[in-house]
């Protein structure tokens, strides 16, 4: 099939005038892309539930468990390598009509994968999840029960839980103060792209390197006995595990090649499609065994590796820098050799994004509610600079942006590394994506974030400049010592609990238990300093508990879980013969994700203003009102909403409190240390935790009641509370030191589609972005879909399937998020520029 665009009709102009970009996209994309885009089974939960027809994949888990049991006497890393190889050799694979890129994390397109060895509590939840068992359901349930019985007590989290301090374990598992699991089974794996994705190396080259390392090590083990050679035995085992799985990965790719050849030679009648299938076969015979030679091979290698890594662990993020690593192949194929037309390349780019969009794994309810509509945070990084500081944008940067507007997927999204040398052409392409309502690219301030990487973790400037988003927000280098092979989501803090506990002596009225330290009865506090001191101690306690748990999980992960495939593509691990999760030689790149952060500043400011400064209310009255969830205290609640200053209005009263909170926390960030003995800065953002935690966080002095949605972003003002216009928002946020106060700070803004129309709209936005850059903010992202469209989508979701909104740290299709989240987005202030 050629990349022939669908015929345009007269209504296209009409759609453009009405800014109905999703219908324009459908008409403009090629027939191939239209087929593939509509063929996707949505794996992100709709609100908290899976879409009809989605079934858990039982083939992979059964294969993995059988072989895991068979090799029970092997060390963990070899056991995983052999079990993984068995899955690669035997799981059903498929090639969809019209597709040119292959690879999926499951045995059929409608399946979601299941990580059996991660956590028994997740396994039990799967057993009780209605609607996702393959038919016949009874037989599937029996199979799941057998697998669960086998893994009970020996999953990675089960093992960590046994050695955690019991009090920490109970509080961590309460679900009130954080989320995630302290294991790489569900981690966010940074990738060492500088090692394997530069078109210089294939798996056969890595295997040859490893064989040399083994030969050298074996030579040492037969030398003079002594303690210095003992660790080599473990390293040889690790190297052999890497080879086992890298060889299996090559065979996995060859299975796709064989299927494509069988289809071409025996089953396909269309000559054009036969050619495509033979090209797929040649591609999968080439990569990942050998280095790619063209764009299709480069995309395919990347896709296969990402897919295979998900068979090894449920990677919850997809760190990537696709324009940088695949760009040279695009320029060679499209601009120099002209072996690909621009349209053909668009088909490949679009399919690459669609393949990523369709990936899905089973997630427990808290994860589904926290990331409604998507299966992970596939934030792909584009733009930025090269290691020498020059502009890294290339022809593929703009090609990705143009294709995104045709494909309209919510996962992956793009984050653009802005720097002063970015051309106007690229800025216009970015703006068109925003104007088309994608909610992406988000904008990241490259010079600020390079400095931030150097400040917190000591990365040299050339390495810092390689950074990609490891998850939603946090920059991470892709180099040998800079890459972080996994970051566990369990260092995710429900920060509103800091002020809640400071007001309730560490007691949690929602879950009904003493959580934080007893910092005093707030009714007796006589000045703001006593309250702030209590807040500081609660903050330190909460973060330390989460970080202790994560550190322990990380320290023990190679023993409790192990990642032979990730190790095989990580230079540091290949060179040393260690598991990639072993922090040896890693510089460290940790961060604490700070959910529900801004409630602290607004709440503390409200107490300072109305209780200690104005003396309109007493602490006793406030605590009584909060304990009553403001019930019976509505006038008082409205005073706390309206008569206390709120973050985002360029008001030093509250902004100073925000800075004081951040700087007090940053001081603690330098005291807490990661497994690489580096720092633990905070990154305030919410994913959609502002909705997930709404029923967990009690009433707060900012006027919020238990059950109300929390604020939507890391440093975003509360919905409707930023009343002084967009510049005031930027000025408040610009007071933060985006290098020294934390790792990254998420800011959501809503803009009016009407005001942003045409050239004038672009120029207005450019001026706004210049202010943003001058003030040194590290992040900003935009929703630019009108209330009218969003309300129409609420009434008639079928017609608005491709309308996308920015939720908090990610984009989602509006129809895939809960009504509460939808309403929360509509409530956000539309900023007039």
């Amino acid at each position: 099939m050629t990349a022939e665009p669908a015929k345009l009709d007269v209504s296209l102009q009409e759609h453009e005038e009405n800014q109905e970009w999703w219908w324009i996209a459908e008409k403009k994309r090629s027939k191939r892309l239209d087929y593939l885009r509509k063929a996707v089974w949505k794996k992100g939960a709709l609100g908290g539930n899976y879409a009809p027809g989605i079934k858990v994949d039982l083939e992979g888990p059964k294969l993995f468990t059988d072989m895991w049991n068979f090799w029970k006497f092997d060390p963990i890393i070899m056991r995983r390598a052999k079990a993984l190889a068995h899955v690669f050799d035997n799981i059903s694979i498929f090639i969809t009509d019209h597709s040119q890129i292959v690879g999926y994390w499951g045995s059929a397109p409608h399946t979601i994968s299941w990580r059996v060895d991660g956590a028994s509590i997740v396994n039990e939840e799967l057993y009780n999840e209605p609607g996702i068992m393959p038919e016949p359901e009874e037989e599937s349930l029996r199979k799941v029960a057998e697998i669960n019985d086998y893994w009970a007590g020996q999953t990675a989290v089960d093992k960590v839980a046994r050695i955690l301090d019991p009090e920490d374990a109970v509080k961590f598992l309460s679900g009130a103060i954080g989320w995630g699991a302290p294991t790489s089974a569900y981690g966010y794996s940074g990738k060492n792209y500088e090692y394997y994705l530069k078109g210089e190396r294939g798996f056969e080259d890595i295997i040859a390197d490893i064989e040399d390392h083994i030969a050298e090590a074996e030579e040492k083990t037969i030398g003079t006995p002594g303690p210095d050679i003992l660790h080599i035995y473990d390293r040889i085992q690790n190297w052999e595990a890497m080879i086992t799985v890298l060889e299996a990965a090559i065979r996995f790719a060859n299975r796709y090649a064989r299927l494509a050849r069988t289809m071409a030679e025996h089953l396909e009648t269309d000559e054009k499609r036969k050619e495509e299938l033979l090209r797929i076969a040649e591609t999968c015979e080439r990569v990942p065994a050998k280095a790619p030679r063209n764009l299709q091979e480069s995309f395919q290698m990347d896709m296969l590796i990402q897919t295979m890594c998900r068979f090894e662990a449920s990677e919850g993020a997809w760190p990537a820098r696709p324009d940088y690593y695949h760009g040279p192949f695009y320029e060679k194929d499209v601009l120099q050799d002209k072996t690909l037309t621009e349209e053909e390349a668009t088909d490949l780019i679009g399919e690459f994004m669609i393949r990523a969009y369709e990936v899905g794994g089973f997630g427990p309810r808290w994860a589904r509610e926290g990331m409604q509509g998507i299966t992970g945070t596939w934030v792909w990084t584009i733009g930025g600079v090269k290691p020498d500081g020059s502009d890294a944008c290339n022809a593929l940067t703009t090609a990705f942006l143009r294709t995104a507007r045709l494909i309209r997927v919510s996962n992956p999204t793009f984050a653009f590394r802005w720097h002063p040398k970015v051309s106007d052409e690229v800025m216009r392409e970015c703006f068109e994506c925003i104007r088309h309502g994608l909610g992406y690219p988000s904008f990241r301030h490259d010079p600020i974030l390079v400095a931030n990487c150097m400040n917190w973790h000591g990365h040299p400037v050339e390495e810092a400049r390689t950074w990609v988003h490891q998850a939603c927000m946090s920059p991470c280098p892709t180099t040998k010592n800079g890459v972080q092979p996994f970051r566990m989501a369990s260092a995710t803090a429900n920060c509103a609990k800091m002020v809640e506990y400071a007001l309730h002596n560490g007691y949690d009225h929602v879950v009904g238990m003493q959580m934080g330290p007893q910092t005093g009865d707030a009714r007796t506090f006589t000045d703001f300093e006593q309250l702030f001191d209590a807040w500081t101690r609660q903050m330190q306690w909460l973060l330390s508990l989460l970080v202790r748990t994560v550190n322990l999980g990380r320290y023990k992960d190679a023993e409790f879980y192990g990642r032979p495939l990730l190790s095989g593509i990580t230079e540091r691990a290949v060179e040393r013969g260690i598991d990639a999760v072993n922090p040896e030689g890693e510089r460290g790149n940790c961060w604490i994700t700070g959910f529900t952060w801004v409630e602290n500043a607004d709440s503390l400011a409200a107490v300072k203003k109305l209780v200690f400064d104005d003396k309109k209310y007493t602490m006793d009255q406030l605590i009584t009102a909060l304990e009553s969830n403001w019930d019976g205290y509505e006038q008082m609640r409205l005073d706390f909403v309206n008569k206390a200053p709120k973050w985002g209005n360029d008001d030093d009263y509250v902004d100073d409190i925000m800075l004081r909170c951040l700087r007090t926390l940053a001081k603690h960030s330098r005291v807490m240390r990661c497994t690489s003995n580096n720092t633990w800065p905070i990154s305030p953002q919410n994913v959609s935790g502002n909705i997930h935690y709404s029923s967990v966080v009690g009433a707060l002095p900012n006027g919020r009641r238990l059950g109300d949605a929390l604020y939507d972003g890391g440093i975003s003002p509360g919905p409707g509370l930023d009343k002084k216009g967009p510049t005031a928002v930027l000025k408040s946020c610009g007071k933060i030191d985006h290098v020294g106060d934390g790792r990254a700070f998420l800011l959501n803004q809503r803009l009016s589609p009407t005001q942003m129309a045409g050239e004038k709209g672009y120029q207005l936005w450019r001026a706004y972005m210049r202010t943003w850059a001058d003030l040194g903010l590290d992040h900003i992202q935009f929703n630019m879909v009108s209330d009218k469209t969003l309300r129409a989508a609420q009434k008639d979701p079928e017609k608005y399937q491709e309308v996308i909104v920015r939720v908090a740290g990610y984009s989602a299709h509006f129809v895939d998020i809960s009504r509460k989240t939808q309403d929360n987005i509509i409530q956000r202030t539309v900023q007039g520029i």
Partner: protein
Amino acid sequence: MSTCSDCKSFFPREDEPGKGDCVRRVVDPRQAYYTTKPKNPEDDASGCGEFQKR
């Protein structure tokens, strides 16, 4: 007894004698695709709902 090698969906591997692939066409509610999984030629196919005599 019918075996996999008797089935139209079975394709022996040229480079690995004694092994083969079961390649089938699937049309689901959203897309059409070919799927494959490894099979031995002598595997019992009598219980296979997809069996088609070659």
